[in-house]
């Protein structure tokens, strides 16, 4: 993977971590943007419209025997909008593997990532995103 989220500041209860189930065979780099799956499970984000579960708080090595992973759900993180330019102050959702995009109306029907705090250039450079503040 690439373009993992980078912690700028953890808010709330040190990032308000929530524990999700993950498959033992899955490798998850720290900072991976995770997708919710049934039941109360998470997998790495991969595609446009994936519902957001949280951000991996630790690395998980594939087949290490662990079947749970704590995900951050509240904080400010540097994330990438890939090759699509994005403005500040917009709701962002998962567009691909660790890639965000501005929400349109349909995107609001599933769990979204957060609010962009700065413009994101089309170079794929990271920009700050506020996650989990209920705005």
């Amino acid at each position, binding site marked *: 993977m690439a373009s993992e989220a980078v912690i700028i500041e953890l808010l709330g209860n040190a990032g308000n971590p929530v524990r999700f189930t993950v498959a033992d065979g899955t490798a998850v780099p720290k900072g991976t943007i995770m997708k919710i*799956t049934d039941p109360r499970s998470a997998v790495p984000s991969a595609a446009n419209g994936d*519902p957001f579960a949280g951000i991996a708080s630790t690395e998980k090595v594939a087949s290490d025997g662990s079947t749970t992973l704590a995900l951050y*759900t509240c904080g400010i993180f540097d994330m990438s909008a890939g090759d699509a330019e994005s403005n500040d102050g917009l709701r962002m959702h998962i567009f691909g593997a660790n890639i965000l995009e501005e929400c349109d109306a349909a995107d*609001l029907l599933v769990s*979204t*990532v957060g609010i962009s705090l700065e413009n994101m250039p089309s170079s794929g450079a990271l920009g700050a995103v506020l*996650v989990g503040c209920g705005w």
Partner: protein
Amino acid sequence: MANEAVIIELLGIVPGRPFRQGVADATAVPKGTIMEQADDRKVTVSNGDDSFGGIAAHEKVANDGSESLTVYSHGIFDLKNANLATFQAGDHLDVNGANLVTISDAAGVLKPGRFVALENAEKLTFAACLVGSGL
């Protein structure tokens, strides 16, 4: 009442992020009741397509002299799907009946109290839902 929310995990620095709302003395409120936000910082028990006012943290007996109620605003709770549609893990949900939730439509995502489904649910079944995360 029936179908009250069941605590799975209380989140936040103060577990469940409880706060106090006004309530009519004559109202009976079972613990776990999904409350509707009303004017003047008061809540009533949910009964329709309501704005979310928290989850009753304790029972209130009718005419017990109390005019306030502590409600939880953050955690993972088992909530019951209404008899309208199935939902999938990651969908946004909102209050739609007495202690019932349903998948949000365009109007639903504008209401206070968006929940995130952590499990798939058929009609009239319970599923773990993330409340108050702002995702």
